Structure formats: structure tokens, C-alpha cells
């Protein structure tokens, strides 16, 4: 689906102090994030993609779980849902199926999406649910003070891995890919233009898209591992990221402070859950099939 007009054509003027003001809940700024945290950059990339996109602002909904990243839903001037820890994806699934016109974006942390919410993640990918996932990977549970999680690199120190983590972490692009995601990319908070373009692309695609954003958490993860400020981490990303578009996702493992493989790895077409369901039922049920017609048509005689 290609749209031709952008939000600008729809006369949403850029803000006076910042072009993204119309897309931010300005009455909630300043935000709670630490200085030099990567989350502001991620939000900026997402909202820029929304601004550049032809999808009407009112048709985009954001669902977050719990965590520092989970606070994103509270700052976007869109229909936005701050749900429970791990359950952003099933909430988004219900939202999308109840109103298939919506573009539903899940923005949440690594712990939220692939630890406590891991089961929902793999099943939504398997079903090819038409939702977009932006997973901010800061290698730890930041909100709760920096414990290790399913993406913490081996040997990295966290409050609950004081001698370093010895668990094997997930390679998220490989996980998403092998579960059936139709769009898979990884960028860092330094690669703002790539990330923004990638989010824009994912918004246009139909199907389960997954974008991992490697993002500095200076306050807890970096401090405990003596990695410096957010700026130092951006420098590290600059010096150590290699863009390898289309590479086999099995090769995207992340080791502690080693090379980061980034890029767009998967971009393919596959029938979405919704289209498969309606197409299949149409054949199987025949003439009697009545597809779901959307929220306004509920039977009811009011009060």
C-alpha cells in the first residue's frame, strides 16, 4: 500500500519550537528519561516517521508495556495505551482485530517483549499479526534499576548478576525471523536516519514487523559496566556497527562490547492473520460467512 500525501499535506503544521510538537503530548514534557538515554532518540525517530508517513495521525495507535521504554506511549500525541508488563502485544492484537483500519505500533523494552512477554511475541509473529514492534534493547531491565534480562550479553554486570551474566542471550532478529516476522531490522540509537526510514517502511508494510533498537542506558547498564555516558556509547556504536543488510539473522548475535551487526535483514510479503482468516473463512463457510464489520456496527438499542 503506497500513500502519496504526507502529514504535512494534511496541514498539520510543524511545531513552533520543535517540528514534532504536534505529535508529542507537550503537556507531559519534560519526560522522565535520564539525560543521554537513547529513548528520546527512539521516540524522535518514531514520531518523525509518523510525521513523514501518509497514514493519518488518527489511525496510528501506540501500545506499550511497562518499563522505561514502556513510558513511550505516554508521550505520543496519538491514541496510546500503557498496559501491563509483557502484555502490549496481546493488547495490540485485540485492538487491531477490533479495528483493522488502525496501524498499531508496539513500543516496548527487551524485557517486556521477550522475557515476560516472550510467549506473546513468538505467537504474534507466527500468526503474522499485522502490528509493528519497536523493541528498545538496552540490554537490561532499566526501570527496575538494572537487572539482567534475556538480551544481557554474557559477562555484562547487572544488579542481579554482580559477577557478570552467564546466561546465553537472545539474538532478537533471529528470534523474530524464525517465528515468521515479515520485516526484521536492527539499528542503534546513533543510526537515526536509518532507523527513521526503517520505521517508516515498517509502518507501510502489512504483517508482523520487528525493529530492534540498540539504545544506551547510561544510568544503570552503562554505569555498572563502566561504559561511560550515552555519548560514549554512541561513539562505541559509531566505531563498532557494521551495516549488513540482508544477512542471515543467525549471524546477528551480540557479544559484550563487540561488533554490532545492524541493517535490514528481512523484508518479505506474507498474508496477514486478518487476511488469512477472512479469506479462509470465506471459502470454508461459504455464502453464510459474515466478516467482522468493525466497531460502529454493534447490535444494540441504546438506553
Amino acid at each position, binding site marked *: 500500500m503506497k500513500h502519496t500525501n504526507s502529514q504535512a499535506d494534511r496541514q498539520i503544521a510543524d511545531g513552533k519550537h520543535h517540528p514534532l510538537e504536534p505529535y508529542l*503530548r507537550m503537556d507531559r514534557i519534560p519526560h522522565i528519561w535520564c539525560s543521554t538515554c537513547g529513548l528520546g532518540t527512539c521516540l524522535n525517530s518514531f514520531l518523525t516517521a509518523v510525521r513523514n508517513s501518509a497514514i493519518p495521525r488518527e489511525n496510528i495507535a501506540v501500545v506499550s508495556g511497562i518499563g522505561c521504554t514502556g513510558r513511550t506511549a505516554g508521550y505520543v500525541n496519538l491514541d496510546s495505551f*500503557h498496559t501491563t508488563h509483557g502484555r502490549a502485544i*496481546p493488547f495490540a492484537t485485540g485492538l487491531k482485530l*477490533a479495528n483493522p483500519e488502525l496501524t498499531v505500533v508496539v513500543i516496548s523494552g527487551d524485557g517486556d517483549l521477550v522475557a515476560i512477554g516472550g510467549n506473546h511475541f513468538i*505467537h504474534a509473529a507466527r500468526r503474522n499479526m499485522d502490528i509493528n514492534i519497536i523493541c528498545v534493547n538496552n540490554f537490561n531491565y532499566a526501570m527496575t534499576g538494572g537487572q539482567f534480562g534475556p538480551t544481557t550479553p554474557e559477562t555484562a554486570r547487572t544488579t542481579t548478576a554482580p559477577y557478570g551474566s552467564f546466561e546465553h542471550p537472545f539474538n532478537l532478529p533471529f528470534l523474530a525471523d524464525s517465528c515468521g516476522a515479515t520485516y526484521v531490522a536492527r539499528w542503534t540509537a546513533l543510526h537515526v536516519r536509518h532507523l527513521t526510514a526503517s520505521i517508516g517502511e515498517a509502518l507501510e508494510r502489512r504483517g508482523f514487523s520487528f525493529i530492534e533498537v540498540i539504545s544506551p542506558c547510561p544510568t544503570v547498564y552503562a554505569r555498572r559496566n563502566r561504559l561511560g555516558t550515552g555519548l560514549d556509547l554512541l561513539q562505541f556504536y559509531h566505531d563498532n556497527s557494521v551495516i549488513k543488510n540482508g544477512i542471515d539473522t543467525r549471524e546477528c548475535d551480540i557479544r559484550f562490547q563487540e561488533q554490532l551487526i545492524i541493517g535490514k535483514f528481512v523484508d518479505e510479503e506474507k498474508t496477514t492473520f486478518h487476511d488469512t482468516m477472512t479469506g479462509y473463512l470465506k471459502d470454508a463457510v461459504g455464502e453464510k460467512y459474515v466478516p467482522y464489520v468493525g466497531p460502529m456496527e454493534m447490535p444494540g438499542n441504546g438506553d
Partner: protein
Amino acid sequence: MSREDNSSWLKTGPHYWDGDYACAEGAIAAGCRFLAGYPITPSTEVAERIAERFPLVGGTFIQMEDELASMAAILGAAWGGAKAMTVTSGPGFSLMQENIGLGVMTETPCVVVNVQRGGPSTGLPTLTGQQDMMQARWGSHGDYEIIALSPSSPQECFDLTVTAFNLSERYRVPVMFMMDECVGHMTEKVVVPHLSKIHVLQRRWYRGKKERYRPYVPGKDLVPPMVKAGDDFRFHITGLTHDERGYPVINAACQSICVTRLVDKIKQNADRITILDEDRVEGAEVVVVSYGISYRVATRAIALARDKGIRVGSLRLVTVWPFPERRIAELADKVKCLVMPEINLGQVYLEMERVACGRCRTKLVPHCGGWVHDPEDILAAIVEGAKP
């Protein structure tokens, strides 16, 4: 599909259905068009019936990966504008609790059906119980008030599912539909009324100016009107303590305002919410207070007691939560004893005892689950209660 142009989705007329099927049909009649669930005995037949019927009536059924997902999905669907329901039994009900709390906090209308079986844990998967009544009341963390109904027959599984949806829309709260294995699996005559005879409450949409919309500005009844995603309100909702804008405000003052209204909107409307079914309560010396399948058994015990010349009344809790404090207190002033049979070791009974507060005797007729009471046990309690 509007109600008028195609009513073939409603199976008007008499049927021979079990409670689970009747519940599914009640949901369809109420306008429920989204169901997310995960199979569990003895509730599975509700989902099975829905899976078969929804493609014929314009509904979307999705079998989720677990009950955490099911509960989260119906909340999402409700904010997408659908009337939504999930259905489960004890173990699944436990998994749903956190997101039931999110539903309470965000004031999301939806219906949670629990076809109760014996517990704790996996307990008695195929046998009856009424052991989740307190979990329905207090299962999620934090302070809140909830609405719960308990049907006693397949007919009521149909009728009261419609009522459950109406109450959830009216008060913007997840409504617990507390069936049990017996009622779910018993097959009886169920008459589906004509379309015009079914009262279905439409969602109460916000009708004011878009720019002035704030998600949690309540009406006089303490209930705020709803909006849905996609209509350019660009609203925010959160499970965090929030102000009228739906924005998080993490302090004691906001907590007090937020939680007090969540509780008061049910408490202050309790008389409007409460549905009781009374029989020969006036002048009774003993009143049997019961709900669900236990009411059916109590009916037999009451008949036997009346044969013995005891003046026994029956008070059936069609809505169990909010607890009908006013009516129970009135009765406690008049009768010698209030008797409650329930298929647990004393749950709703504790509320009755609290409200009676020594003004009359109270008697529990407990049962561990797995089967219904022997009417003789209830009768014995009535006879005891009638003693001077």
C-alpha cells in the same frame, strides 16, 4: 450488521441447550463480536460455540496463546470499539487477574466468564465448585469494586450474559460472569426472546467537543463516557494512577481521587446494579441466601422445611458483587437465621456474616466441591436456624 436488517444471528425460539452454549448465544445477543480465549474445562464449550457461530454473525474469535493474552486482548478490543468477552475456569482465571486489574483501572467494559470447577490448583477439572467467588471480588491487587453475576440455569446463562454486558457498558468495569460446571454442563430448555424483547445497552460514547475530551471526567453517576481508538481523540490510558486526562500522577492525592471514584461508582450505584430474586421472605423466620447452582439445591431443602411447617424464605443473589448489604441488613433485623449453602468453605458467607453483624444468627453450609450439596444438609441448617 445492524440489529434490524439481519436478525438471523439471533436464534429466537425454544432450544435445548447447556449453560455454556446459552452463554455463548447470550453474548451474541448482547452484541459481543470479539472473543479471545484459551481452552479449559469446563468452559471450553463456550469458546467452541463462539468459534462456530462468530463467522456467521460478524464476530472475530481468536484462540490466544494463554489466558494472560486473552484478557489483554479483550481489553485492546474494547478500546478498538468492540464488545468483548473471554471465557475460562479457575487456573485461567488466576492468570487473568493482573489484566482484570488493568481493566478496572482503565475502566474498560468487557465480560469475563468463569465456569467454576473445584480447586485449588488443577483441582477438579471436570467437577463443580463455587470457589472463585472471593477471587472474583479481590483477585487482582489493589482496592477496587467489581460486578459479578451468578446464573442458576442455562436460561439465565443466556439472559444474564446480556445483563453482564449491559452492566459492563453502564459502569465501565469488567463484569465477572460466575458460572459453575453444573450450570455450564446442564442441559435445559432455553427460550431466546424476540429481538425487540432483548434489552441491549449500547456503549455510552462521549458526545462532546473533541478538543475538550478528557478520558476520565465522570458524569453524575461517576462513570465517564467512552471513546475508541481511531476517532482522532488521541487519548492516553494507563494502568498507573492517573488524573482526568488519563495522565499518570504518582502521588497520594491523585491516588485518593482515582481509586475513590473507581470504588464509589460501584458502591454508590449498588442498588441500581443489584439483582435479587426473593421468595416468601416477608414473615420468614429463616432465609436461605444462595446463588448459582446452590440455589437450585436449596430450593429442594426449602420445600422440605416448609413441609415441616418452618417459615423459610429464599433470597437468591443474581448479582453477588457488589454484595447486597442493604437488603441483607434489613433481613438480619427480622429473621432468626440466615443460612448460606455454597460450594466452598465459606466465601460469600463471610460477607453475609459481616453485614448481619450479630443481629441474627448466620449459618454456613459448606461443601468442598466436586458435587452439589445434599439437600438434607441444607435442611438441617434451616431446622437448626429455626430453633428459638
